[in-house]
Structures are given as C-alpha cells and as structure tokens.
C-alpha cells in the first residue's frame, strides 16, 4: 500500500526518489487524479517536525490527540517555543514548561525560544535556569530570549551559566534582559551570531574605557560573524578614541541601532574597524561624536538616521564597489539640522576623496534635502589621480530636493574624475 511504502522510506527529509518509485507503480491517470491528494500525514516524521517546529510548543503538543501515531510525535520536535503571553497566570506557565521538559524525549533541541511576558515583571529564576539547562544539555544551537524586564525596579535576573558554557550554541538573541551577572567566570566560546536588544551594562562591573568590554568577554566577540546591538545607553570616560570592534576578527556583519552615549560620556571618535567587516548598518543612533568607518573590507554601508548629529570620516584603504545608502526618516525640515546635514555630506565627500582606487562608486541618498556647504566642495585638484569611471548617484524622489545644489554636487564629482567617459547615472 502506498502509505506503508512512504512511511518506510526512512529518514530522508526530501524523498523525491522514493515518491517517484511509489508512483511509477501506479497508472499514469491515477497520478493525475491522486497527485493533489498526497496527504501531508504520509510524510516522514522529520517533515512533520519541521512544520511543528514553527509553532509555539503548546500548539504543537495538541497534535498528540490526532491519532495513535501522532501521540508522541511532539516529544521529539527539535524546537521549544515557550511564550507566557497565552497563560493567564505565570504559575500555570511554569507548570506547563516543567511538564513539557519532563515529558519530552531525549532528542536534540535545535532552537529554544523563551518569551516571558506578563504584568508581573519578575522572571522566575528557577524556571529560567531549568529551561536553559535543559536546552544546553540537548545540544541547542539557537536561543532567543525576551524577558521583558525593566532597567530598574525589577528583581535581579541571572543568565544561567549553562548558556555560557554551552558548546553547541551558535546563535543568541537576548531582548530586554538586564541581567546582574556581568562578571560570569565563563564566556561563550563559539557564538556565531549575537543579537542584544536593550541590555544594560551594570555600572559597577563596567569598564568605562571600553563600554563594550564586558559584552566582549561574556559573549566572545572574537568568534562572532554577525553582531546586532540595539538600544544601549553607553558611558565612556576614556581620552582616546573608542574602537570596540578591532578584535572582532571574524565579524562580517555589524548593525548598531538606537545607541547613544550618556550625557557627556562620549568619545571624541567612535571608530569601527573590524578587519573583515563587509556590512555595516547604523540605524537611528544618537551619537554626538565623530564616527570613523575604518573597516578595510567594507562593501555595504547603510546609514539611517533620525537626528543627523553624526559626522563621518572614512579611513578605508581601498574601495571596491562600496555601496553607501544614506536615508533619513521623513521629518519636517528644521533649520537646526541643516548644519548637521552639511557635515554628513562633508564626511561623505571626505571619504570619496580618500578612495581614488575605486572604479565604480554607488551612492544613494534618500534625504529630505541634499545640501552642499561651501566647505564641502574642496578643490578638485586633490583628486587628480582618481580612477573613477562612473558614479551611480541616486536621489530619492519622494522627498524635496534642492535641484541647484544637486548640480553642484554632480559637477564636483565630474571634476573629480580623470576619465573622459565618466558617467553620472542619476536616478
């Protein structure tokens, strides 16, 4: 019978071959008629697991009532997704989680998602420990946690040690955690991707000459290939410039959003110089210091700002097809911002002046106004050795553009290139 054939096809996830043989034995017209009636339930467990692993655990468990075959399928779903939102009382959530952990079989957990919502902001430390411990014991690779804790006024939370000592953990996302154990004896040794949102740096343990130092120790900055930091209020009391990612030897993707330095505790220069960095995104940060982009292998730079307080400088030895994408959130044009915008553009032009080896540069602006202060348009002689062949210059059409200034800019760039056939592509 077809059903048995397919069930016995073993653990191959995509078993197109066995399907072909099963159908080959049928009449070709049967194929046409029954093609659409392939029943999902005939799929091997791993495919069903796959679908169930996208659901919250409490939903996936309900499949135990489908039929005898389905009674225990849920026990080996490689994903645990706990969300306290749907429980009226946190004590019920706790009971549920503990029940699941004790009734699950011993198979791997690939992904753990633990979202604790609720009016009560206190996280149950015991429960949290149990869940992390279980996941770490079962070879978890990805953990996503949102404790919805507050910066202050909450009982202390500790991130359980097994999370840091877990060898299999590759991807970690922590939102709204504010843990108290900044001085853990161990740090993660094999993280690939780290996403921290709204994570407070405790002043007692913080090293003010590098506000990122404790993060670096806890999560192992040197192994990361992707890092996302969102909504941090940093303090910096050092005298030098701050270069927190210099030792991130494997970092390829960096995204900083909604970051700021507290009051006057900001560096003069905030340098971003990860040696292998290829994608950099700076989104809605409130930096009042100069940002120096000094990552030699940068390919993509996205800058989305809401208050243009930053001034850029680029220190990139060579540019090969760098794409710069500068966006501004739609906001009414304010006089006080105009200066800052000039500075941003100035910073951009400084960068281009330094990178005469590039042959093609793509700039896209989507700003309210493209202005060009007089100071920004330096004499083009400095660029006599520029090899630019083309400049792909896109200007967003949904916003108001000062056309006359745009001509200044294009003329400037045209002067900068040696090539007769220098092309400016306007979008």
């Amino acid at each position, binding site marked *: 019978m077809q059903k048995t054939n397919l069930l016995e096809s073993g653990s191959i996830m995509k078993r197109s071959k066995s399907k072909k043989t099963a159908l080959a034995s049928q009449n070709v017209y049967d194929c046409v008629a029954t093609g659409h009636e392939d029943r999902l339930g005939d799929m091997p467990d791993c495919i069903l697991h796959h679908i169930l692993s996208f659901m919250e655990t409490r939903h996936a468990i309900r499949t135990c009532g489908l039929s005898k075959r389905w009674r225990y399928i849920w026990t080996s779903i490689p994903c645990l997704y706990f969300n306290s939102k*749907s429980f009226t009382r946190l004590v019920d959530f706790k009971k549920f989680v503990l029940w699941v952990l004790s009734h699950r079989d011993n198979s791997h957990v690939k992904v753990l998602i633990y979202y604790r919502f609720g009016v009560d902001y206190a996280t149950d430390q015991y429960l949290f420990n149990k869940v992390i411990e279980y996941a770490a014991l079962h070879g978890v690779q990805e953990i996503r946690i949102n404790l919805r804790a507050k910066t202050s006024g909450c009982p202390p939370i500790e991130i359980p040690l097994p999370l840091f000592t877990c060898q299999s953990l590759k991807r970690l996302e922590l939102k709204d955690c504010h843990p108290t154990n900044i001085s853990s004896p161990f740090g993660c040794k094999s993280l690939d991707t780290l996403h921290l949102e709204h994570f407070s740096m405790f002043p007692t343990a913080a090293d003010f000459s590098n506000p990122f130092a404790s993060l670096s120790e806890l999560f192992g900055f040197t192994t990361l290939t992707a890092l996302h930091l969102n909504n941090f209020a940093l303090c910096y009391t050092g005298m030098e410039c701050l270069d927190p990612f210099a030792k991130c030897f494997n970092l390829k993707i960096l995204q900083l959003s909604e970051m700021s330095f507290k009051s006057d505790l900001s560096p003069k220069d905030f340098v971003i110089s990860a040696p292998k960095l290829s994608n950099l995104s700076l989104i809605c940060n409130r930096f009042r210091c100069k940002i120096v982009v000094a990552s030699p292998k940068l390919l993509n730079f996205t800058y989305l700002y809401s208050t243009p307080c930053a001034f850029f400088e680029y220190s990139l030895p060579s540019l090969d097809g760098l794409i710069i994408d500068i966006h501004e959130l739609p906001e009414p044009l304010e006089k006080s911002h105009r200066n800052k915008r000039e500075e941003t553009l100035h910073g951009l032009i400084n960068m281009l002046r330094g990178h005469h080896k590039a042959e093609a540069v793509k700039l896209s602006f989507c700003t309210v106004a493209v202005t060009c202060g007089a100071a920004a348009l330096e004499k083009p002689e400095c660029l006599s050795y520029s090899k630019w062949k083309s400049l792909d210059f896109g200007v967003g059409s949904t916003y108001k553009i000062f056309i006359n200034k745009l001509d200044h800019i294009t003329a400037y760039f045209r002067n900068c290139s040696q090539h007769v056939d220098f092309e400016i592509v306007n979008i």
Partner: protein
Amino acid sequence: MAQEASSSTSSKTISLKTGDGEIFEIEASAAKQMKTVQRLIDDLGDDITIPLHNVFSKELPKIIEYYKKDITGEITKDFEAEFVKDLNDDEVKVLFLAANYLDANKLFEFLSQNIADRLESKSVEYVRKYFGVENDFTPEEESKLREERAWSFRGIKEDE
C-alpha cells in the same frame, strides 16, 4: 553528467513539463534553486524538457513566481505575505508538497512557517483533516487523553 555548453547560462531558460502535460519556462538560475530540477538537468541535459510527474499546472506558476523574485533578491516579508494572502489552506498544502518534491528549500521553509501559522489556532478535528489523519482512538482513549491534556494545559487562555 551533461555539461552546460552555453556560457551565457544566466539568460538560459529551462522547460518544465507538469504531471498534467503543460510546459512552463524558468530561468536556469531559478532552476538551480530547485534541487530536484537541477539533478534532472544534470542527468538529462538542459535542452530537454524536464518532466515533473508530481507537480501540476495549478501550482507550478506560483512556484516559478516565487523564484523569479528570489533570483533578483527581492523577496521581502511583504512579498511573502502577499504571496500567500489569497491562498486557502489546501492550496498552501499543495504548494508545500510541491516545494518538497522539487527540493526548493527557501520556499519549503517559508511555507512550513505559513502552514504552522495557519494551523496554530485550529481545532484538532481540522488539523486531522488537513494532515489526512484517521482518528484511531477509541472514545474512551480519547476522553482519557483529553483529561490528561486538560491538566497539563490548565490556564491557557484560548480554547482549541
């Protein structure tokens, strides 16, 4: 294994023939995303119409539409939401099974999530029908199971 003779493979199209005899064209780069198709191309050559016994003219165009967007890197959350917006649960199931047969990973992942979302809030009876599962519990077994589950699921807001 047949070698691809043409050096301009980026603009080459492959012909696919569905189980109900219709022929559709896709770009070679899109075909690469469907491992089953690519294996058939490797075995049979890229000049022959590739037969897909288990995929039909109703769903193949939709799959082609998805991969057309994929090769230009334009797949966004919005596109994916639009893509499934007007499909009913059974249509998604058919697409899912086809994506599995074609070994089209990206679409398979996306549809897995979509099916999970659709089934999350449905009753056990509905899910049974959807997966084509026969209820082989006796009424006693079923009520016992329900009791067990009720205890462990106490305090959950929604009813199933």
